């Protein structure tokens, strides 16, 4: 049986979809079967980031309503053959997701895949609670700023109360993925420091993804950053996070301090 991961945050725009795609592609490159599931019915984006927007025929809602078989809705990635996408519906409403339907789809996917990664919509309503409901592990995506941290805290509270695991009295495994982290701004005090975020949320750190143009570039060409530019700093950070998700015990790499052009020239001269 595969593991079900929910990528969630509460707040929008912090990098849930980017992280879902990047982690999915990173895990798939370890020769494990991975499916990424878009739960953002009505505002889907995961198909764009995965570069599969023109190949969507059936979606999650079609499967739940019995209009299509699960195998018909799954889209195989063109670059990595053991990476699949189950897209969300763009035309339907969130109310078409039923708890029974979602449970059935997740259980089916668990039988065939090693990893089922659910991309949660923002907010704490139906879509988000259904996406987290059957998860074994949660990846809480947070930006180092106060509103994102508070929303993440709220989501962690829901993970501990509204999921099947919590209702059975078990502990939900939760990891913090700190995204869009800018070392320079954190040092200046414009952003929360890593220690501050960890102190407030008190869950283990999965990884720190540096703020980078490489992420935006990758999204625009329709590829997860871990496929588009595997050597880049954010991709390396996602690979590291994926290894940790798979159970490896490795230290978290702090993003290096980036110097501006003038800084570089200056430091060379000084050397």
């Amino acid at each position, binding site marked *: 049986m595969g593991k079900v991961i929910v990528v969630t945050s509460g707040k929008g725009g912090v990098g849930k979809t980017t992280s879902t795609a990047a982690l999915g592609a990173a895990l798939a490159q370890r020769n494990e079967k991975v499916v990424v599931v878009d739960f953002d019915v009505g505002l889907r984006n995961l198909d764009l980031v995965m570069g599969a927007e023109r190949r969507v025929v059936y979606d999650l809602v079609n499967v739940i309503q019995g209009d299509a078989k699960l195998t018909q809705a799954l889209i195989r990635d063109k670059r990595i053959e053991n990476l699949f996408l189950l897209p969300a519906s763009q035309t339907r409403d969130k109310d078409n997701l039923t708890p029974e339907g979602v449970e059935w789809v997740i259980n089916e996917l668990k039988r065939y895949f090693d990893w089922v990664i659910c991309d949660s919509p923002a907010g704490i309503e139906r879509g988000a609670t259904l996406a987290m409901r059957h998860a074994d592990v949660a990846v809480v995506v947070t930006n180092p700023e106060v509103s994102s941290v*508070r*929303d993440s*805290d*709220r989501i*962690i*509270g*829901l993970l*501990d*109360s509204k999921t099947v695991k919590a209702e059975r009295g078990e502990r939900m495994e939760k990891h913090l993925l700190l995204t869009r982290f800018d070392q320079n701004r954190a040092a200046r005090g414009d952003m929360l420091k890593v220690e501050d975020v960890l*102190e*407030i949320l*008190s869950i283990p750190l999965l990884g720190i993804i540096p703020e980078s143009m490489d992420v935006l570039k990758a999204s625009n060409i329709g590829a997860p950053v871990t496929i588009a530019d595997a050597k880049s700093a954010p991709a390396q950070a996602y690979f590291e996070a994926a290894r940790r998700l798979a159970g490896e015990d490795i230290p978290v790499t702090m993003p290096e301090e980036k110097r501006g052009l003038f800084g570089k020239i200056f430091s060379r001269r000084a050397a």
Partner: protein
Amino acid sequence: MTKVQTDSRSIRIKGRSFLAVVLTPELPLDQWLERLDDLAARSAGFFLGRPVVLDVTDLQIDRQQLGEFLAHLAERNVRIMGIEGARHSMIAPGMPPVLKGGRPAGDVDVASVEPVAIAVQPAVSDSGDLQTEPQATVLQAPRSALQSLVINEPVRSGQSIIFTEGDVTIVGSVASGAEVIAGGSVHVYGTLRGRAMAGSVGNSQARIFCRKLEAELIAIDGIYKMAEDLPTDLLGQPVQVWLEGDAIVAGKVN
């Protein structure tokens, strides 16, 4: 003649609470007594050694009927320690006293009385062991005044912990947007960033303790202070908060 007090010690009067069984009879009384007999037959010794209070609030009977009713109960070995909800005209001399201000305390489970009946037997027979006296089982009833709630994880934004029966202890932090409401004191072994309300059911002796104060709001017995009104030198410090008269006072704890 004046009385000479030979012993200088004054008499100390203490309070003690017992969990009383409340009987609420309904009209017609003879049918209600039949049902009582039925109950007594199923669990023998249920009323033995238990304080029993008679609630006659909704009962339309006069003094004479009440007297007869008490006699019927006495025949069944049900001894009434007090009468609740009675008009003064209903009470004759020699009847149990009128009680006021009782607080409700859940249903008494009749099925659980079997041990009482069993416990009576050794006391009557040879051993004479004090612990098996039926009185002891009555005292085992839960004492609501001594309860406390311990939470071993952080209280997250949007969560609220409400516990009016006593103290709340949180081994972890209370997040911004979370709230803790306690009938007694609030203890936070972490950072208090949300709201804490102690003594919520009218307890001015309750206090709030935290390892690091960054609270949005603190309140004791309904008197509150917002984050802006807190002394800035206490922010981020280990602090306790208490009530002096009608003013909230905060100070460092070391």
